């Protein structure tokens, strides 16, 4: 019997001092409001991949209205058949393949325990009255209505007829505001073959969305519930999870929260995990795991990985050593004492790249080249979710930009700070940065759809990825390059600290930018997020010529003088550059003029107006002009029109010719006999 119960282990670490250099001056909340507590016990049969679960859910009505019903998410049913909302939305992205084996959750019991119920029954069985399936008006999957504050509401039918992921449970009596109820639950999970974050492969088990989970009741008394959509993630209230897992003794377990009790009896390993201030619980069990343990910035990090992946595990730990303290300093101290990182085996790779409170999954092949930083990027990204999803629990269906978008920005920023310009690829002298790829990816879809819209409103997985992830990251990186990294760090840091353990919407994010960086920047951000804002700077016209005396007939001092065209001036050169800003976004930029004598001159353009002509008179001719020479506005739609020459361009491409010739020579030698 090994018991690790320790109040210090269970507690959150919000009271710790932020490190020196932290940005943002708000003190984040130390704890979340305790709305819903789960005490669950789960027993895994690794042969049938069935989990038997039971326990209690203690829920408090924190809204202003009596609750007449409960909404419960049974998201494992997304993989039950091809008529679930998830499987019917054929729009690409992760989880698009049909599971090799279906998975589901059967609720065996859902009962309301209350001694003072009106009919005197101590326990009221709710499940017989539950509406597992409902008819949509047209029999189709429909978008969830989203109200003005961005909260998906329960108004209108929005569950497909066969979808069983979003269940309405009528209550026998209303639960008054402030009242607490206890639900007894019992359920059986049949895990699918790994698909979209969850499932099994062989004896590997990644268990997410596995228990009946209450939707969130908004303060206004409306349930924010929704089916498991293909591109959507989740939304829930904070609380305490106390989960006891029962697996074969040979299995290693990783889970949300701190391990407080562990024992082996009768060939079974029984481990209990407890965590306050979280809104979900996931776990994994496998009899092949290798593990590494390290204390990083005061957090007990456990890395679980397959045999033969030790080198890759070392790379992932290195990424955590940088990113964990970096994120803590930028977005508020990581509030938990533990972090578990799971690297799934190759054949279960779709379980990788996912976030749960205090548990993330990463990915990458054991042979991943050191110069290709995919494993580091995934690890840093999922870690970033501990802030933008974990502690700031936004509605991921309504506003994926707030979790995936901000996390992507946190990722590219951290990777740039850590690995510089080679934060994505660094092989053979070619250095590519994570943020450069995001900038181009975001521009690809900018005219198609808004960035800030519900996940299930996106037309395709590709559009969702390019806009939510790439566009948001490159927008905020542009703000950092134009207005200063420190300012953006303060704005995002203020948002992250102020809404820790909260459920903000985009207005709160824009508000933090307005507060820290001013209304103009906030307006730009709003336009970019909501109105498909875009920008393209261009050098449109450029000219240079020797100054000449004005030609014509002039009456001066009582004499008439005729000056012919081309009459010499004072030897100076007159130059002009017309630059344009196309699109509805505006960022101030530099315009750099290069002269024949090798000198350069920079002019600042606030770019409020749509065009500006820069005129210059000097001793040398203008050779070239460049808008945004430092590449600060990385959301610029077209970099290739940012420069111009009066002669139309005379430079050739010696570097390209040299390198291309060399590479093709090598290719000829490889292919030639």
């Amino acid at each position: 019997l090994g018991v690790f119960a320790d109040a210090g282990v269970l507690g959150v670490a919000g009271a710790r001092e932020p490190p020196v250099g932290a940005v943002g001056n708000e003190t984040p909340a130390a704890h979340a409001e305790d709305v819903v507590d789960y005490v669950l016990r789960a027993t895994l049969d690794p042969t049938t991949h069935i989990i038997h679960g039971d326990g209690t859910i203690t829920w408090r009505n924190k809204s202003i209205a009596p609750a007449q019903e409960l909404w419960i998410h049974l998201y494992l049913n997304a993989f039950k058949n091809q008529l679930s909302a998830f499987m019917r939305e054929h729009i690409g992205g992760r989880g698009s393949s049909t599971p090799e084996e279906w998975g589901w959750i059967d609720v065996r019991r859902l009962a309301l325990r209350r001694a003072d119920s009106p009919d005197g029954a101590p326990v009221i069985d709710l499940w017989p009255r539950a509406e597992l399936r409902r008819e949509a008006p047209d029999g189709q999957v429909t978008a969830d209505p989203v109200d003005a504050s961005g909260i998906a509401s329960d108004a209108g039918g929005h569950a497909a007829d066969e979808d069983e992921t979003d269940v309405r449970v009528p209550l026998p009596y209303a639960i008054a505001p402030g009242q607490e109820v206890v639900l007894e639950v019992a359920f059986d999970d049949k895990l699918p073959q790994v698909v979209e974050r969850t499932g099994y492969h062989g004896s590997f088990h990644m268990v997410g969305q596995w228990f009946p989970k209450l939707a969130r009741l908004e303060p206004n008394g409306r349930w924010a519930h929704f089916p498991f959509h293909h591109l959507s993630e989740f939304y829930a209230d904070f609380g305490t999870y106390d989960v006891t897992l029962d697996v074969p003794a040979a299995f290693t377990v990783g889970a949300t929260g701190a391990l407080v009790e562990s024992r082996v009896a009768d060939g079974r390993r029984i481990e209990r995990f407890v965590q306050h201030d979280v809104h979900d619980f996931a776990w994994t069990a496998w009899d092949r795991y290798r593990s590494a343990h390290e204390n990083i910035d005061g957090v007990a990090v456990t890395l679980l990985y397959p045999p033969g992946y030790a080198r890759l595990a070392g790379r992932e730990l290195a990424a955590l050593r940088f990113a964990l303290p970096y994120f803590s300093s930028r977005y508020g101290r990581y509030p938990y004492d533990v972090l578990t990182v799971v690297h799934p085996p190759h054949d279960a790779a779709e379980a990788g790249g996912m976030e749960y409170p205090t548990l993330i999954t990463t990915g990458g092949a054991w042979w991943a080249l050191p110069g290709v930083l995919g494993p580091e990027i995934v690890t840093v990204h999922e870690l970033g979710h501990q802030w933008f999803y974990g502690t700031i629990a936004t509605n991921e269906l309504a506003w994926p930009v707030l979790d995936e978008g901000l996390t992507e920005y946190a990722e590219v920023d951290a990777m740039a700070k850590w690995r510089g310009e080679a934060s994505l690829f660094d092989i053979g002298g070619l250095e590519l940065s994570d943020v450069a790829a995001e900038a181009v990816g975001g521009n690809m879809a900018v005219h198609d759809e808004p960035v800030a819209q519900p996940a299930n409103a996106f037309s395709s997985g590709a559009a969702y990825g390019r806009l939510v992830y790439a566009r948001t990251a490159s927008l905020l990186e542009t703000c950092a390059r134009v207005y200063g990294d420190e300012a953006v760090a303060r704005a995002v840091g203020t948002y992250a600290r102020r809404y820790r353990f909260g459920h903000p919407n985009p207005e709160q994010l824009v508000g933090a930018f307005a507060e820290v960086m001013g209304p103009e920047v906030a307006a730009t951000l709003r336009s970019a997020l909501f109105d498909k804002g875009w920008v393209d700077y261009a050098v449109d016209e450029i000219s240079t010529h020797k100054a000449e005396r004005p030609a014509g007939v002039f009456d001066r001092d009582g004499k008439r003088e005729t000056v012919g065209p081309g009459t010499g001036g004072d030897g100076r050169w007159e130059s002009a550059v017309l630059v344009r800003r196309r699109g509805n976004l505006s960022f101030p930029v530099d315009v750099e003029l290069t002269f024949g004598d090798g000198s350069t001159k920079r002019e600042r353009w606030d770019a409020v107006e749509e065009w500006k002509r820069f005129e210059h008179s000097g001793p040398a001719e203008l050779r070239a002009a460049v808008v945004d020479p430092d590449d600060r506005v990385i959301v610029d739609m077209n970099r290739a029109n940012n420069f111009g020459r009066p002669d139309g361009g005379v430079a050739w491409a010696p570097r390209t010719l040299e390198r291309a010739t060399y590479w093709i020579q090598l290719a000829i030698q490889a292919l030639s006999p």
Partner: protein
Amino acid sequence: VSEAGDSLGQAPDGMRARRHPWAILGLWGWQTALALGASWPTASLIHAVFGASPRGDAELWVPGGHALLDFLWHDAHALAPVTSTAKAVLLAAAILGLLPMAASMFAMTDDVGERRAFVLLRSISRALRAMPALLLLLVIASAAQAGSVGLGWLVAKGVDMWFSEALGDARAQRIGLAVALVFVLAASGLGVVHDLARAVVVCSRTRALRALVRGARAFASSPLSIWWSWAWRALAALAPVVAIAAVASRIGGRGGFALVALAVLHQGVVLARVALHLSWLAKAMRVVQRAP
């Protein structure tokens, strides 16, 4: 004296690449001309896009690669014909390259004292006559090598699947790779036999199949020694490519002297690799000349 009656100007010991620098330069020139032809459309396209920049195409090589990635997105359609051209050149190089290679081999069989122009013309003439045999050898050897590598891939995949459940994917794939390596080594042995058969064609003017048999017999007489003669040159040809990549990464998008220096280094690497290849082919000719 060859089977066709032509006399070889060089005794086996004299067939060495270092004694025939013009052969090395000729083959290098052929490859360079082809590569320049293939890369010119790319350079022209980039000139058209970045010519107006004061930094020229250095924009593309700035660390971080934003301009490069932006260019690849915006000009994807223009890049399609450019890459098609490069592919066509590589295909042509794979087939027509037999001619300069054979000419170089013939040149190495000639007396170094003869006039270069005469040697060149005679070598090309002999190479043209040997082309049918060399082409047939190329087809046979390529098919055999592809078969060996393909079979190796299938076996490795099977081994991977077989062991994956018991050992985990990383260990299973490593075992699979080790198994695949055996087939790759076998393919390299087939390549060595192919080169020996070419040497027979050059030295003895025999037909392809007969040359293949004689090449295989020569290889069988001392397989490890002959294979190593090829392998150390192949490894030596790899080393400067790796080394120069590090230099290139330091130079980045710089122009001027740095770019000239990089070009010189790159061409030095290409020239060295050509020399090592011809050195091996000369060795192959010596082997078949000495074989019983």
